[in-house]
């Protein structure tokens, strides 16, 4: 290294020292006390007074922009994320205890209570919404909502009807020979498509019996009929308000709740009872508005 370059280096170091002294503040930036001798460390709190070793609050505040941006991205994902559905046929023992999301069609819906009549359980029989599940076991599964969850489903009107397509997130319990889904929160069951195949067709008693094949195995709604008689524990006989001789049986009703002569509206499946050889309306009292008293 020649003399000229050594001299140049010395000049550069002196400039740097001068620059660093210029950086030192008159007041300690940490405790605010005066630093008239412009020392590198505060005489009171020993803080380094050069700004090189310091992070400004402004810089920290600006860095929160990244967090705000991240928050917006996460919220956008939460709103737009396409749900990942698991086919019912894929729910197996290896997925035991996992939370799964299923898109399914409701086949049946039932409600029962424990032996002390306190804890309500709602059970939905589901089938794969894509291929209908058919009669094979793999395409069907039961979903249980118990206790508080069942109560919430009913009270908040979140219960689906037969044929509805539902989106449900639940815990799978699967072992040898059994598979059940358990619903943890009522809000995790949503009806995404109201059933069209189970939509009720409006008709009166006379029209039903005049052309029964037109209504066979369809959900029908009789807007007005009169209870003619009560039979056994599950059947009532209703007649057309205009013609008392035209009657039809309604199956699945607790007759003790009704009186003869009452006007009612009835919703249910119109089916042919082959053993008895007659047409009847099969209702499920758990479904809302299955039998409604009008007077």
């Amino acid at each position, binding site marked *: 290294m020649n003399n000229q370059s050594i001299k140049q280096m010395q000049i550069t170091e002196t400039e740097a020292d001068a620059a660093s002294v210029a950086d030192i503040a008159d007041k300690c*930036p940490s405790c605010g006390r005066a630093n008239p001798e412009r020392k590198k460390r505060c005489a009171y709190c020993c803080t380094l007074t050069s700004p090189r070793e*310091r992070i400004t609050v402004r810089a920290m505040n600006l860095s*929160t922009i990244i967090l705000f941006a991240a928050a917006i991205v*996460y*919220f956008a994902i939460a709103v737009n994320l396409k749900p990942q559905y698991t086919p019912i046929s894929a729910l197996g023992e290896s997925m035991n205890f996992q939370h799964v999301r299923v898109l399914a069609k409701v086949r049946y819906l039932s409600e029962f209570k424990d032996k002390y009549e306190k804890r309500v359980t709602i059970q939905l029989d589901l089938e794969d919404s894509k291929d209908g599940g058919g009669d094979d076991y793999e395409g069907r599964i039961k979903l249980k909502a118990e206790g508080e969850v069942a109560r919430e489903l009913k009270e908040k009107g979140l219960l689906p009807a037969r044929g509805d397509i539902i989106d449900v997130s639940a815990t799978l319990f699967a072992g040898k020979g059994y598979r059940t889904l358990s619903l943890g929160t009522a809000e995790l069951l949503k009806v995404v498509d109201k059933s069209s195949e189970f939509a009720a067709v409006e008709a009166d008693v006379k029209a039903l019996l005049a052309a029964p094949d037109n209504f066979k195995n369809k959900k029908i709604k009789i807007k007005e009929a009169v209870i003619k008689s009560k039979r056994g524990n599950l059947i009532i006989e209703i007649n057309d308000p205009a013609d008392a001789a035209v009657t039809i049986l309604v199956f699945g009703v607790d007759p003790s709740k009704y009186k003869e002569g009452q006007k009612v509206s009835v919703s249910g499946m119109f089916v042919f009872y082959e053993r008895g050889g007659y047409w009847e309306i099969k209702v499920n009292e758990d479904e809302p508005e299955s039998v409604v008293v009008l007077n």
Partner: protein
Amino acid sequence: METSIVIYSIVASLVGVVIAMAASIIPGLHIYNVIALTMLFAFTAADLFTNLHPIVLTGFMLGMVVGFSMLFTVSSQYFQPNDESFRSIMLPHERFLLEGRAHEAVMLGALGSLIAIFIITLFFPLIPSFFSLARAIIQPHGYWLVGMVMFFILMTEWPKDHGVGKTGWQKFWDGWVQLLMGYFTFIVAGILGMFVFYRTIVPVENAFQSLMPLFVGLFAVPSQIMTFITRVKVPKQHICSSVESAPHDVMRGSASGFLAGMFAALVPGMTPGPALLCTGHLTVTSGERQFLIGGGVGRVLYYVGALMLFFMPGVFMRRGGAAINISLFFVPETPEQFFLISGIIALTGAVSFLLIGWFSKLCANLVEKIDYNWFSAVGCALLIVLTIQITHWQGFVLLCVATALGLVPNMWHSRRLNLLAVLMVPVALNMSGAGPAVARFFGFY
């Protein structure tokens, strides 16, 4: 997920931050106490919440936890000075306050908190499988990990005064009294913890809050009492626009805080205090700045990071008081909920950070105008009323016992960390399977 639910959750979380800030002005008032009160209100006024999606209430609680974890040290920083007799065990917070640079201490802790929020929101969502794996690995080893930490706490207790007595026996006593009181505190706190775990006297409907009177009594009330009797003059505080922190301070403090926060978040019975003690040694942390930054990182990772694991798909780990309370009314199940929660943490973290500077200036003004002893008196009274409200007179009895024990470290200058035996001893014993036998030995089971 419906946009309305997201909007309601965001609003609820921001309200939670505001409430956390209001609660943070009282030093010693823990957010878990506020959450317990919220739960009590939510259960008694259930009709008000029937039409609200549970995730909205979850967002509210999350806002409170994030806000509190970042803001609660601010009031302690300003309103809890200690006198000269504590100089030997004085934490950096108190030294900064007496040197007029409490705001800098607050901002260093806030820097750590901000780093933790970055880690939680930008890094955690990328590694859910790590947490499943870590849980599977740690679960069978939890008892001896906690046991080793307890051993380390006892080993690192040291005499802080050096034989000032005149005679040989007096010098001997002065040398040993702090060690003995430290061990005494640890053992009695452990037995008290076993009693509450196995035979709590708190009424059964509030039994899930059994630990509340213990923590209030062991930590909060003695601090308030000591502050109330303190007569230190707090100097005028300087509001700085920058903090002294070299890159290696940030790196080392963050490393220590990250390890401590993760350790506390993943191991049952662990809290950031003892975890920081261990990881500080592990990462050779030195100096006040690294301590403050590490404390900020560890605290937020423990409170918020552990809570985030509760919502993480495939992990669903329930750790900490907030997760336990939320699990009473909400079960996280879908990835959309996880992304919503991540967004809420990022948003409330950023908002809380921006509030810290303002909140610190407010506290600096208050400490000049209002005697800090009054904050302690109000805080103490509020904590006692809250404890009685939530855990009834039985909880108050526990609180009195715990307060008597909590005063021991203050009187003899042993470490307060020993009091955490109240949680660590029963948890470690129960995880090892020896809990019932030990409880039977003491007649608790």
